[in-house]
């Protein structure tokens, strides 16, 4: 049976066999880079068509159905359109920052890919502070939005960027706390160790109520962090036309668009890793027979299945709820989510010390 890790090992061995170790590492890096860019493109295409289909079915529409079978190549056609479109720069804009911002958004999303474990023993960088790395890098994404908003020389963009700044900085806190609760239980910042610790059951089941609370808070916080409805104040369409990317067009807009979807994928992947066991199949305690049956499903399918389930959840929210107001958004964070997650982390710590989990 082949798996991602076997392929990776095979490539690693054959490269080391033919080239010197340094050259082999460099070639591996290039391969990884190409793979990440490829994954980006695929994710962008898949998630856009998924969002359009989900929204269409919720809104009793058919959705795209012209390009390819059932409209599955619609996002490909859209990409071509965006590629050939003229990328305008407004006359009063700060040209350097204006052109830099979308790339920063994309690079942040790329960096976040590094510690993710896509399948068993298949990871770009097995970092021993993986969780810390993810929460540190994800905060950088606000810079690209602020940069875009400021440099556009547009009041709508500026307001969108300021909203986004306030929003991401606040929700970073509760997202961090909810991630921390799993770290406390697993006793490690290493994503791989966290996944291994879920071999006898995912944390959302093992950690019962407190972890479920952190899971809910995590979902809310990352929805806000990725600027998705109902927290899409940074680009609140009916208020700020398009918020921070009002002035962007063509490929630069597409990069923001892509970064948004890749960010959604990454936060969902992290949620799946921390709370739903990442690539770990569904195991129940010591039911070895059952666990064996579950092991037959490849680990990558488990990982992507869980991630796409969370993505669907976030999309479902988006097409159901109205948008919050900026003060309500901050109220929700500072008056509800933050106190609850502070109390929750205390509970989780007590639980971890006393061993009150399965």
């Amino acid at each position, binding site marked *: 049976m082949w798996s991602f890790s076997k392929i990776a090992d095979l490539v690693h061995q054959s490269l080391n066999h033919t080239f010197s170790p340094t050259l082999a590492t460099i070639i591996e890096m290039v391969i990884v880079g190409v793979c990440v860019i490829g994954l980006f493109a695929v994710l962008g295409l898949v998630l856009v068509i998924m969002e359009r289909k989900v929204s269409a079915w919720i809104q*009793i529409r058919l959705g795209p159905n012209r390009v390819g079978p059932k409209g599955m190549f619609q996002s490909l056609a859209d990409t071509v359109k965006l590629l050939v479109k003229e990328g305008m720069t407004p006359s009063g804009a700060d040209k350097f920052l204006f052109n830099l911002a979308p790339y920063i958004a994309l690079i942040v999303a790329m960096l976040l890919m590094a510690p993710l474990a896509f399948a068993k023993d298949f990871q770009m960088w097995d970092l021993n502070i993986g969780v810390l790395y993810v929460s540190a890098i994800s905060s950088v994404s606000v810079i690209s939005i602020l940069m875009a908003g400021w440099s556009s020389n547009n009041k709508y963009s500026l307001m969108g960027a300021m909203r986004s700044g306030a929003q991401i900085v606040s929700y970073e806190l509760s997202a961090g706390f909810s991630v921390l609760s799993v770290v406390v239980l697993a006793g490690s910042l290493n994503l791989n160790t966290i996944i291994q610790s879920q071999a006898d059951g995912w944390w959302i089941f093992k950690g019962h109520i407190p972890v479920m609370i952190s899971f809910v808070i995590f979902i809310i916080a990352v929805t806000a962090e990725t600027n998705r409805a109902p927290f899409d104040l940074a680009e609140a369409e009916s208020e700020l036309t398009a918020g921070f990317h009002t002035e962007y067009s063509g490929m630069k807009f597409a990069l923001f668009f892509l970064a948004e979807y890749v960010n959604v994928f990454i936060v969902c992947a992290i949620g799946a890793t921390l709370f739903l066991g990442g690539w770990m199949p569904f195991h129940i305690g010591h039911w070895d027979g059952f666990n064996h049956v579950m092991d037959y499903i490849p680990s990558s399918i488990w990982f992507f299945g869980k991630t796409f389930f969370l993505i669907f959840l976030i999309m479902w929210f988006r097409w159901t709820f109205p948008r919050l107001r900026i003060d309500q958004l901050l109220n929700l964070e500072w008056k509800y989510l933050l106190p609850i997650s502070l109390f929750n982390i205390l509970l989780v710590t007590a639980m971890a010390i006393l061993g009150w989990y399965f």
Partner: protein
Amino acid sequence: MFIVKYIKEVFNAVKSLFVGLRRTGYYFTHHKEIITQQYPDNRDTLNLPERFKGEVVMPHNENNEHRCTGCTACELACPNGTIKVITKFDIGTDGKKKKAIDKLVYHLELCTMCNLCIIACPSDAIVMAQTFEHSVFDRAELTKILNNPGSKIMEGVE
């Protein structure tokens, strides 16, 4: 009790969100509720009601005869100057000069489909057609002559 009230509030709030999610979830899973009509594809099965006001046409019978007497009632009734009746004098069978239409010019681009000309017509010479795809590349094509070339007035219509 403050805390009971608070919990009840939070519970109701979350419940209201779940009610909405259930509704959208229902539509997500029930594709038979989809109401999209795939318009250019369903042209053949498209049913427009017989009263639909698409454009003004003048029906002709198989002998290329229409019912228009050239009374200009439609031209007077039209609020936009959409219809222009150009009359001529025909020599009738009995040798008398008779007023008849030469051309009935209809400017579709000016028409608002208000139906006033149809009501005004005393001899039911013009009716509304159930067409709606009026876009053309040349604006001149929207100026139409409603009577067919060589058409005559129907026998017995005064």
